[in-house]
């Protein structure tokens, strides 16, 4: 043996291995100190490596044989050559195949009901002959014992819809105008149509023409319309002014007197006008009062308190309007304000537990409700406004129904219909067996 053979080199080992026909050490390198390194791949231990590990174990035995062989050849090897797997292999060297559980774990779903301390006041609108009025029937709203439509309890009264009638023709969105074109000249025809054709539970007569900056109809003349409306329809009515804080107190006071005993709702008293005069008139002539504030719970409390304490209005004749902002134009404020008020009322806040009214007609103030197309060229198409506008009103109304509104003052017959249908459905009042669907294979059937 030559001298070179006295030194064990890696190359020498490899040659020896080759001599012995160990040529399948794939993924295995043998370094000078006789460690065998195995590079694990990210995916874990690949089959080739498993094979290599097996080979490595065999190599360990083989090396022992080498040692013996080499010492027979007169070459000394310091220590015992070892084969180490430098990277610990974590998973057990068999790959577990995923297998699902044998059967479903049985569960029963249970959830507690919400329970509230207090209930919302009930307010009755309209007076029949028996009660000194001339209405064909009365309508009662409020009285909730849980959040609207919640599965905690059955609330006693469904939300109602009041359709707007004006004492003069006003500019209307195209999607609304088509329904009223023929009656706008005569508020009585308008009111009748609202009740007979469009399913209004009540009508509002807005004395819009009294506005000082517009037609400025004198109060005495304007209130004649109230008498006409009371003749034309026998549903309970709402009497509204023109929104002018200066003139409304005078107009509404006179209107309350002319409708003496009919238990109308007088709309409205708010903090920026002579609320006291309006509320006093409502009380004196046997009406309900609408207490209207602008998106502020504390103002609502304040006005309600004043109406109760200063005017002495009975609790069952107060309805509140915390203000409706249109979808896209502050609806989130209106929603949360109303939801908080309803929750406060159910929790026992006796300055807020009154039925709520919403001026849902405000939805039509959103340009997206009535404009023919977007004024911005970057916008995608807005779709036909005749179809879009009613949806704007439906969604504004439904959102606030969920917040707890009891009375919707509305404009569009389509929205009225859908809103009545949906709110009564969510109260569980609509069976509709005929249109029950089976959704077990819906993906293929829609």
């Amino acid at each position: 043996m030559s001298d070179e053979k006295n030194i064990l080199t890696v190359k020498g080992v490899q040659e020896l291995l080759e001599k012995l026909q160990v040529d399948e050490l794939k993924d295995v390198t043998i370094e000078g100190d006789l460690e065998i390194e195995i590079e694990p791949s990210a995916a874990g231990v690949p089959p080739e490596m498993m094979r290599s590990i097996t080979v490595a174990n065999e190599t360990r035995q083989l090396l022992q044989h080498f040692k013996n062989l080499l010492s027979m050849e007169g070459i000394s090897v310091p220590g015992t050559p070892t084969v180490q797997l430098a990277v610990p292999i974590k998973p057990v060297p068999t790959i577990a195949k995923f297998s699902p559980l044998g059967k479903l774990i049985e569960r029963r779903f249970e959830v507690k009901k919400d329970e509230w301390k207090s209930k919302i006041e009930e307010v009755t609108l309209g007076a029949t002959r028996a009660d000194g009025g001339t209405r064909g029937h009365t309508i009662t709203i409020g009285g909730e014992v849980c959040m609207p439509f919640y599965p905690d309890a059955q609330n006693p009264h469904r939300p109602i819809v009041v359709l707007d009638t004006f004492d003069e023709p006003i500019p209307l969105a195209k999607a609304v105008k088509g329904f009223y074109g023929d009656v706008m000249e005569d508020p009585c025809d308008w009111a009748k149509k609202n009740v007979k054709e469009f399913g209004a539970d009540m009508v509002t007569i807005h004395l819009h023409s009294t506005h000082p900056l517009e037609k400025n109809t004198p109060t005495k003349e304007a209130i004649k319309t109230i008498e006409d409306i009371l003749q034309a329809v026998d549903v309970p009515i709402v009497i509204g002014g023109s929104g002018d804080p200066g003139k409304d107190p005078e107009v509404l006071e006179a209107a309350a007197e002319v409708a003496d005993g009919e238990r109308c709702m007088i709309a409205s008293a708010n903090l920026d006008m002579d609320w006291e005069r309006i509320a006093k008139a409502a009380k004196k002539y046997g009406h309900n009062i609408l207490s209207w504030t602008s998106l502020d719970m504390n103002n609502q409390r304040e006005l309600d308190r004043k109406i109760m304490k200063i005017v002495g209005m009975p609790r069952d004749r107060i309805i509140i309007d915390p203000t409706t902002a249109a979808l896209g134009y502050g609806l989130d404020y209106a929603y949360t304000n109303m939801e908080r008020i309803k929750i406060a009322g159910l929790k026992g806040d006796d300055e807020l537990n009154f039925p709520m009214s919403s001026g849902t007609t405000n939805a039509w103030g959103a340009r997206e409700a009535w404009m023919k197309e977007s004024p911005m060229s970057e916008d995608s198409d807005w779709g036909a406004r005749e179809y879009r506008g009613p949806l704007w009103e439906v969604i504004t109304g439904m959102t606030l129904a969920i917040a707890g509104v009891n009375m919707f003052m509305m404009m569009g017959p389509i929205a009225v219909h859908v809103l009545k249908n949906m709110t009564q459905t969510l109260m569980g009042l609509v069976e509709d067996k005929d249109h029950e669907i089976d959704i077990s294979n819906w993906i293929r059937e829609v």
Partner: protein
Amino acid sequence: MKIQSPLEAYNYLPGTNCKECGEETCMAFASKLIDRSRKLEECKEILDESYKDEYEELTGLLAPEIKEITVGTGEKAVKIGGEDVIYRHELTFFDAPPFAYDVTDVMDEKEIVDRVNYVQNYKKFYVGNFLTLDMIAIRSVSDDPKKFSSCVRKVAETTELPVILMSFNPDVLEAGLKVISERRPLIYAATVDNWKRIAELVDKYKVPVVLFSPDLDKLSSLAKTFLEMGMEDLVLDPGTYASGKQLKGTFDRFIKLRRSGIKEGNKDITFPIMCIPMQAFLANKKGYKPLPDELIETLGGPEEGRELYQPVLSETAIGNISIIKYADIIVWHNIEAYSVLPSIHLKFNMYTDPRTPVSVEPIMREVGNPDENSPVFFTTNFALTYFTVFNDLDSNGIDSYLLVIDTGGIGVQSAIAGGQLNAGKIKDAVEESKVKEKVKHNTLTMPGYAARLMGDVEDETGMTVLVGPMDSGRIPGFLDEHWPPKSE
């Protein structure tokens, strides 16, 4: 989340007040963690190995009650769930429900591409940004794996939006997964019948999955079983129906699930909820109509597509109710612009953080390159009003000055009724902006709704006042008629 007070979070933080996160103190950072306006990972120190235990524990405590699940990858990925409250005023709602729109594997290629493009290119300007749509749901009507696979491929070629693969047939779903699994689609759905095979797919492709049953006992069983198998990226479909008692049941189930998850901490079901208002179209096939047809006739909209109005109206109403209570992801069928528009607004509104006032800085803005002859407008600092007016001026190329009056973030009509917008405030804004020195016409144009302030404003500011249109979209036409102002 499991903790309510900043102090509870503070106990886990390093407490060094290093200010690296941008907050003055660790306590300040802790309070931001509690209101979820900052993320724990923004604290660099706690990411250090030595705080490993604190980091992990606090992460667990801060996790939202309803699990937040990511669908899709990259920039277009959507987050669903992540909710912590029952009522939005208790904190805020967090992850607005993505809107997915369906295509089917029996549509021809052109229809698929057109629908996908409509969805991915949709935009509507609103409060300084564009509202957009989020996802594509691919529905297997054919039940044929090959057809489904080629439909999925077509969608994947056309868009990077995240997708939902929909079939009750595991073979069909797998055909879709083979095409698109690396883009982390949501698969729909595991039921009491097919759940084992679906679980195998979830394990193999590592994708989130929807569990479907209108029976809440069964839905809970499915969820518990998947959890037990180590699968946590779950979405629940408690069944959406379209009318009558069935729709009432749908509403009730959504309420019960969310209440159980958030109020009672029922860990079996603390997952996002899926609403599928397109069931309205199934009901429509059975003759359900939310409206008498005569009303639609009177409405007088375009005849083309009029027959769709009934089911679209119904789908829109159901979908929008679910935005409020408590859908975390919504799958729509109709892509009618008149339905998409209100729905995306409601989604945006409900998921606006009620804690932040929606107002802009009350200063004078220059639109375009105004000069001494340019008109001067004013509006309020309610963000929505401001952006609407600004964009109506800007997009119509009207060089002008826009005074933004501080009304405390209230719009024109309400601010006039409430007194936040008055002649005194307008005078102050005019003086502060020195706008009188910038123009030589001494004319101020006011919003139509502010008309009643005209006299007072003229007296206070000494400017000539023009009453503008009620809607700023009509300013261009208004200026054609009234600008430049006639000399006195």
